């Protein structure tokens, strides 16, 4: 049993690809938590999808024991944090469970916007920062320059150059963790207060919470209450990950681990919530809890209407593990029965959509993502609109407001002009520009979130050759002059293609969208007119010409089965398209609004 003063809780802050997982692997090896043989590469990223995308979605905690140079054995708890803007609330809760953070910066890249955002969050939580400069084994590494950036930002002169790949310098990092990060401060004889910083669903144990015990102790048999919901459970198991689950008699003040209490649903283990002892309840919860609210909505529809119940089941299963995913049934005249789903952001949406298709074998149509608009009707009613097709007619709207973000872009100086142009095109307002070092700048803009959803990130990457990085946070709702753009295919409005666009851009978008749809809708047996309209005014028109020819095939040698199978395949291909009226529309058409290009 480790004394409280020998516990060190820390996390790692890093940009994607800067080597967080590799460093974590080395730490686990050096502390003999995992042998090299057992080490799958990047052990902490367990979900297949995470591994493929090289990002970490779910935070986890791993306990190591390290015998330091002072001869003492320390308990180190590494809390893994998600690295994407969509999950910034989860990041903040993970940070709240730590006393220190390793800031990893790629020696060949320097600090990126996402790292900066998380770093500032860590400083807000008063964490001790240990700057680690990684990839010093690479020929293009520039340790001095990156050290200067770090010093400029946080005034720290001591940096730890390492190669997580080869293991060089990692021992020194472990010593720094022990020597500079303070031990947890909680009071062991106070009533229990434990912070939930993550959870997942286990089909045998139910919802499992990752917790940091701030005050007191928790052990199996204890009756616990969730502060935000008041729900009560009995603890059946506590333990920690080393890195596989090891159960303990108790989790004590300052310790990090998991808790099982026959909770049926991850909604019972809300991230940020405080667990208290039912019989000896603490009076105050831990600070910082908020209910996570989705920011981005889209419609998910099965291509084949028969799959609707399967889609519901799949969403319910995913929700077991992901309390931030919300959905409710909706009906579209064009697409039939589906769900309006809310996500934390675009990456979250992408991940869910991919898991539905990959793990549940569903063929889906995703409508273009939309933000939540707030509007006031002429009769004084306040409405929240998460679906463009539900926007009332112009006569009924007194005012529309849209969510704005503060966007931070870190970029080499030579791209500043291009980025300013881009932000201007995206209705941005310039706020600030700072120099990180003589060649890298931090730009701050206020932008509508809807513009970021469109294609801002792609454009940012392409106009800076991938050098710029972006972070943003939602700050306010602002009034805007927005209109609904409708798309009519074969003269019938297709609700799922409607979009809410700024009035000044509507005509341009309408033309581009009609053009894009013409490209993605295949030729049919008849002409297909496409129209874009605002209200009753048609602003653009394109026509998909009728199909001229398919293969005039011979039917040689009686291989009729083959011929029939070819037609079956042709039909199968069409099943992935949605039949709207008599027009077959491919899945990608519904995302076309995001692909509208400014350049042509």
């Amino acid at each position, binding site marked *: 049993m480790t004394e409280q003063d020998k516990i060190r809780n820390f996390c790692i802050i890093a940009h994607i690809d800067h080597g967080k997982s590799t460093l974590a692997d080395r730490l686990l090896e050096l502390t003999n938590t995992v042998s090299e043989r057992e080490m799958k590469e990047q052990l902490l990223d367990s979900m297949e999808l995470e591994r493929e995308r090289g990002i970490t979605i779910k935070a986890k905690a791993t306990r190591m024991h390290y015998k330091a140079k002072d001869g003492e054995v320390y308990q180190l708890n590494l809390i893994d944090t998600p690295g994407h803007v969509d999950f910034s609330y989860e990041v903040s809760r993970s940070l709240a469970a730590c006393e220190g953070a390793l800031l990893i910066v790629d020696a060949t890249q320097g600090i990126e916007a996402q790292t900066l955002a998380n770093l500032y969050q860590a400083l807000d939580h008063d964490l001790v920062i240990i700057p680690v400069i990684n990839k010093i084994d690479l020929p293009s590494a520039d340790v001095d320059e990156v050290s200067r950036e770090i010093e400029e930002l946080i005034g720290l002169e001591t940096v730890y150059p390492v190669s997580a790949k080869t293991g060089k310098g990692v021992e020194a990092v472990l010593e720094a963790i022990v020597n500079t990060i303070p031990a947890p401060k909680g009071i062991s004889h106070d009533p229990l207060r434990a912070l939930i910083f993550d959870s997942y669903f286990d089909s045998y144990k139910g919802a499992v919470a990752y917790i940091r015990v701030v005050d007191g102790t928790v052990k199996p048999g204890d009756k616990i209450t969730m502060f935000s919901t008041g729900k009560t459970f009995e603890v059946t198991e506590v333990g920690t990950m080393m890195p596989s689950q090891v159960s303990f008699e108790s989790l004590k003040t300052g310790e990090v681990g998991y808790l099982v209490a026959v909770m049926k649903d991850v909604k019972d283990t809300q991230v940020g919530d405080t667990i208290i002892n039912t019989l000896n309840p603490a009076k105050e919860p831990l600070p910082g809890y908020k209910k996570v609210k989705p920011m981005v909505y889209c419609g998910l529809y099965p291509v084949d209407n028969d799959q609707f119940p399967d889609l519901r089941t799949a969403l319910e299963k995913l929700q077991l593990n992901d309390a931030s995913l919300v959905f409710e049934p909706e009906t579209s005249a064009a697409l039939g029965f589906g769900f309006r789903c809310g996500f934390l952001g675009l990456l979250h949406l992408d991940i869910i959509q991919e898991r539905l298709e990959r793990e549940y074998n569903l063929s889906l149509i995703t409508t273009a993502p939309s933000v939540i608009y707030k509007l006031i009707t002429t009769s004084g009613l306040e409405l929240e609109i998460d679906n463009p097709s539900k926007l009332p007619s112009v006569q009924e709207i007194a005012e529309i407001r849209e969510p704005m973000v503060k966007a931070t872009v870190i970029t080499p100086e030579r791209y500043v002009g291009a980025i300013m142009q881009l932000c201007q095109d995206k209705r941005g307002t310039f706020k600030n520009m700072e120099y990180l070092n003589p060649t890298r700048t931090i730009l701050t803009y206020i932008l509508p979130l809807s513009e970021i959803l469109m294609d801002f990130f792609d454009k940012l990457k392409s106009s800076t050759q991938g050098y710029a990085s972006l972070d943003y946070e939602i700050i306010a709702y602002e009034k805007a002059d927005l209109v609904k753009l409708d798309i009519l295919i074969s003269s019938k409005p297709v609700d799922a293609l409607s979009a809410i666009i700024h009035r000044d851009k509507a005509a341009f978008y309408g033309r581009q969208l009609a053009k894009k749809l013409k490209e993605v809708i295949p030729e049919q047996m008849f002409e297909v007119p496409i129209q874009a309209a605002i209200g009753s005014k048609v602003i653009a028109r394109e026509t998909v010409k009728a199909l*001229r020819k*398919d293969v005039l095939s011979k039917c040689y040698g009686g291989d009729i*089965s083959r011929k029939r199978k070819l037609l079956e395949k042709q039909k199968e291909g069409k099943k992935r398209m949605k039949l709207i009226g008599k027009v077959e529309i491919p899945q990608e058409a519904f995302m076309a609004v995001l692909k509208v290009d400014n350049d042509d």
Partner: protein
Amino acid sequence: MIKAGVYVHLPFCLKKCTYCDFLSHPPKKGEIAAYLDALEIEIERFKVEGLTLFIGGGTPSVVPPALLVELIHKLQQTYGPFLEASIEINPATVDRDYLQALLFSGINRLSIGVQSFDDSTLQLMGRLHNSREAKEVIYLAREVGFKNINIDLIYGYPGTDIISIEKTLKTAVALPVDHISYYGLQLEPGSELFRKNLLQIADEEFVEMYYLGLEILEANGFFQYEVSNFAKENKECNHNLIYWHNKEYLGLGAGAVSRLGRRRFKNISSTDLYITNLKNNSRIIADSEKLTADLLLKENIMLGLRLKKGLNPKQLGDRSLEELYPTETAFLLKEGLLEKVGPNIRLTKKALPIMNTVISRFF
């Protein structure tokens, strides 16, 4: 006994044409004789009453006349007599004696792989004959006594144009032939042409070539009876009609397909395996499929709509297409893609170039 069409596949040719992906190759030494021995064994495995015979390839006329005649005799003895007995020949591979031997053996219909009467087109295609030789063979066949001659023509080959195809069509209709198959080039992934990656004819021009064929052929007494097939009166190919009516047929040889009773099955494609397995008295069937009522219905629609006379309710178990697929049929009729002819329903002229797309609506 089952009445069936009989197809025999001879997978040999002198040289592979650029557009071809059929099962054929230049024969190895001794391969033809071994293959024909194997065929004899296969022939003895089936007892059917042959209605028609069709010997196809490859280029069947690559087989030496004595061996070919022996094969035909065997087929006649086992399944004959045939109402119609066709063989495919290539202009560059036959002479008067060869043709005479075929006629005496009971062959009464020739299908000649002419493809074009334009020499530069023939060269592009990698054919071994020129247009003069093609014409000579046709006249020679008539002289020898063949009363039923088909020529195959291909349109839409890369590098050709509407003028060259018009020349070919006008030459064709002036010749003493009874049947013309007018095929649009299909770019097959297994062909040399596919690998060459040439600029393909534009869809508009391709369709124009097809319609020009319809016009010239019909105006000269070759009546369309199937999407790609045109015949003088009573000279339709009975063997192919068996396929299009989805009736029974026996396919012999490597890669050949049979439909007998409720099954359709396909022989192994490898000539070597075909020969060894038959020698060892073992199985040569690679694929077999039970034709359920549902599959037969789909196939009958697919095949029936290829025919000019259209799809007859009899082919659909005495139910009309409108009864079976009311919305689709009504829609396609309204769009002018299907039309009614008495009790039958057929594709309109406008629908022919997009036949697959139209038919797949019923799948």
